[in-house]
């Protein structure tokens, strides 16, 4: 075996407050230490990333009077990839009078995550979900409305109630623009200082606390030091480790990974979400995959031909010769089963020889029944922009021909380990939104990512950060002239130097593609022991090759996309191995982590609550192949552990 798992000796304290589950957050807020309004302006908070979590946190902390320094890799804060979320945002409003409640959203989320999330965090998320909708509506976010002027809802996978709020198929865009508006107001008022085109390349840890970051100006190449009293990482997930994913091409793990190498534990990296409804890959040239929102499964029916290798045009296959396999296998939830289940079912259909389309790696998502029932106009009103997008990419009209879809990497539930305060194992370093691990367990339900990003930024961090600052961090004078800054800057410069000087003959893109294939094949929708060992070996070999044969064109001191990508691919080459190791270590199946050795007779995920009811928090040891495992044991006091059933 080419990698070695060592046990760490850190006792992870989740710092979950005492008290009944539905009072924990209230009690926490009552007891949290506060920073005097006049003292808030003496604190500088560094926020990296401007997606939903980052921009909502920057806006809110700015409103409270903190001095915020905000950083993003794009030209504008509005470009962060939250903008691309389509379907909606969940909230336990029960506006539909259909039996929803904070408890039910909590329960659905814990169950949807296959009982691998921290109960207290999930309950808090469910509680504040209702405030998020209020906040966004007040900002003027143009949510879909009913004729009477009230908010409209739709259903999403894994729920039997309608609790998803939406703005056409562009909910993430509208929520982000709402947060970006509030953020912009704080920039205007001078409370937020915004640095665009900056990539965080290292964390500065001084006296055991996060006290600053090192950034590279992506336009000039300048390496800069920034000091603060706390650092909030809001940098999203690591789904582009697969190369092909629904994430934007600039999404990356670098900021989180560099923090990991400075001491922040990385939890559950093997929990990745493969989204069931994406447009299938058309060729090797492809740079990304496009999602078709899960909301389509409200009205679309998934099927494959009953006959293997049936090459007839889908419209020529009569209803009785179609297998609506989700409706058949999961009658209670039908086409609205959670994502992990829908993805695996699609993979199984294709693996068994029932796949359709030119590559046979696709299944149909058919709107014929919905169009007959509702009329084409109603379907257009609901999903028009998604249908247009599909036609733009494939050249096929989904009003007339069923869509072809296939699963693709979409979201990562794993991320930096955080306690109830959203603080990582490095004091002062907090992780918000997708870059932390805490709320979705082993599988995230649809329309819950937007909810979590905004919950962390608008409603959680303002309380927990104040508590940290008031208890542990004086508003001391900031300086970037410390040994820690000098050392971090030197290490960043040496890293760049090293990348530039290899002088080989392969591009960063080449390595990223190769890595993506390894991870997709062995750490994708189905994993097994042999494949995971192989993945680790292959990644090690690829990493070696990278550091010998990479070629980065251009110069350091300029706008240089190749250099940006080279650094990110170097980090993915380490993270990829940790994903394989984590998946190897977890000898059970749960949510997005499906180990072929551990399944029920019906092919469903088989958990092992006896031995694996923990979050695996990995500690950097200095060698990517020898990570240290620390465990946070998960206790379920309010929800009974059960095999997840959607039948």
């Amino acid at each position: 075996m080419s990698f070695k798992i060592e046990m760490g000796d850190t006792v992870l304290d989740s710092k979950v407050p005492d008290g009944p589950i539905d009072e924990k957050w209230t009690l926490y807020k009552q007891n949290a230490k506060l920073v005097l309004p006049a003292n808030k302006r003496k604190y500088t908070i560094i926020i990296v990333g401007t997606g939903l979590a980052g921009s909502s946190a920057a806006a809110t902390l700015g409103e409270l009077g903190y001095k915020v320094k905000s950083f993003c890799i794009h030209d504008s804060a509005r470009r962060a990839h939250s903008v691309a979320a389509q379907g909606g945002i969940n909230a336990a409003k029960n506006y539909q009078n259909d039996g929803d409640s904070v408890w039910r959203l909590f329960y659905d989320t814990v169950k949807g995550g296959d009982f691998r999330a921290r109960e207290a965090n999930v309950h808090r998320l469910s509680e504040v979900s209702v405030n998020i909708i209020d906040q966004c509506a007040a900002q003027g976010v143009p949510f879909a409305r009913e004729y009477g002027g009230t908010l409209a809802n739709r259903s999403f996978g894994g729920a039997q109630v309608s609790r998803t709020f939406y703005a056409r198929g562009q909910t993430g865009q509208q929520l982000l623009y709402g947060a970006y508006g509030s953020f912009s107001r704080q920039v205007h008022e001078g409370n937020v200082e915004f640095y665009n085109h900056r990539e965080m390349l290292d964390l500065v840890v001084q006296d055991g606390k996060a006290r600053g970051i090192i950034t590279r100006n992506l336009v000039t190449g300048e390496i800069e030091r920034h000091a603060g009293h706390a650092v909030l990482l809001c940098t999203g997930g690591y789904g582009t480790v697969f190369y092909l994913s629904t994430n934007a091409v600039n999404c990356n793990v670098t900021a989180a990974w560099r923090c990991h190498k400075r001491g922040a534990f990385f939890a559950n990296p093997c929990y990745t979400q493969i989204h069931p409804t994406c447009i299938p890959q058309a060729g090797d040239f492809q740079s990304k995959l496009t999602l078709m929102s899960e909301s389509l499964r409200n009205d679309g029916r998934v099927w494959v031909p009953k006959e293997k290798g049936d090459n007839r045009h889908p419209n020529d296959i009569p209803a009785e010769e179609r297998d609506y396999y989700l409706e058949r296998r999961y009658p209670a939830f039908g086409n609205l089963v959670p994502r992990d289940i829908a993805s695996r079912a699609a993979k199984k259909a294709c693996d068994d020889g029932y796949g359709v389309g030119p590559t046979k790696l696709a299944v149909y998502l058919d709107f014929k029944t919905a169009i007959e029932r509702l009329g084409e106009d109603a379907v257009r009103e609901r999903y028009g922009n998604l249908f247009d997008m599909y036609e733009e990419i494939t050249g096929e009209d989904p009003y007339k021909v069923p869509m072809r879809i296939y699963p693709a990497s979409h979201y990562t539930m794993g991320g930096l380990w955080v306690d109830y305060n959203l603080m990582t194992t490095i004091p002062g370093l907090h992780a918000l939104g997708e870059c932390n691990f805490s709320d979705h367990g082993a599988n995230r339900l649809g329309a819950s990512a937007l909810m979590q990003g905004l919950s962390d930024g608008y409603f959680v961090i303002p309380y927990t950060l104040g508590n940290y600052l008031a208890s542990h961090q004086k508003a001391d004078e900031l300086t970037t002239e410390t040994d820690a800054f000098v050392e971090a800057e030197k290490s960043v410069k040496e890293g760049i130097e090293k990348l530039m000087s290899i002088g080989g003959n392969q591009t960063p893109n080449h390595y990223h593609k190769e890595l993506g294939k390894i991870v997709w094949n062995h750490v994708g929708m189905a994993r097994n022991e042999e494949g995971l060992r192989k993945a680790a070996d292959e990644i090690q070999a690829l990493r070696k090759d990278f550091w010998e044969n990479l070629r980065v064109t251009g110069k350091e001191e300029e706008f240089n996309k190749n250099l940006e990508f080279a650094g990110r691919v170097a980090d993915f080459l380490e993270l990829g191995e940790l994903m394989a190791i984590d998946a190897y270590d977890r000898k059970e199946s749960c949510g997005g982590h499906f180990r072929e050795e551990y399944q029920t007779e019906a092919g469903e995920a088989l958990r092992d609550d006896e031995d694996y009811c923990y979050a695996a928090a990995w500690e950097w040891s200095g060698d990517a192949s020898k990570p240290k495992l620390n465990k946070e044991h998960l206790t379920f006091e309010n929800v009974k552990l059960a095999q997840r059933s959607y039948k």
Partner: protein
Amino acid sequence: MSSKTMKFNLKIWRQAGPNASGKLVDYVVEDVIPEMSFLEMLDVLNEQLAAKGQDPVAFDSDCREGICGTCGLVIDGVAHGPLSGTTTCGIRMRHFNAGETITIEPWRASSFPIVKDLVVDRTAFDRIIQSGGYVSFNTGSAPDANAVPVGKEAAHDSMDAATCIGCGACVAACPNASAHLFTAAKVYQFARIPQGQPERDQRVLNMVTTHDKEGFGDCSNHGECEAVCPKRISIKTIAQMRRDYLVASLRS
């Protein structure tokens, strides 16, 4: 999947930095297939250049599905290229004829200085938003979301305008390099709904003032912006912004 490969002659604007002089440079790109997006075609070119140790063409993109607003190229003289209602990343090579010559340039406007090659600096847009493109509402003070009803039509209209992705094609297409469509889209989004009313006058005054200060030109009703807008935002938003501006000026 098609196996047909295509070859194109490209004329691409190369410029080392904001103050350097630029020029169109000829390239030939081979092995393009019809399913490729326009940006993937440029990826192929860049991989070929990098393999030869040459400096790849700098262009920016992110989501590659038409929603982030990062990409934006003038293709044969048209912002975002030959298809209406589409961003540059949404254009597929099947819309071009094999062997043809394609000219690729950046957005051209003095308020969008060139960073490098095809990348421009659009931070002026951020400053327009900062001056008033929001509802001033501190976190935590919102009433129940259903306490303020918004008519379905108004929400729909507001959403039509809110869908602007801030790509800057409207500026690139306008003979006056005006950002009126961008500014008006935000003004209109809030003008149509109750939440936007308290700050309605101040918003339009501040945003238009900032727009002018950033050096964008005035609108003279050419309608080029609407024609290239990937989100098909209507110039009726500009009419509304002008009315609001006039009313607000008289009132202030």
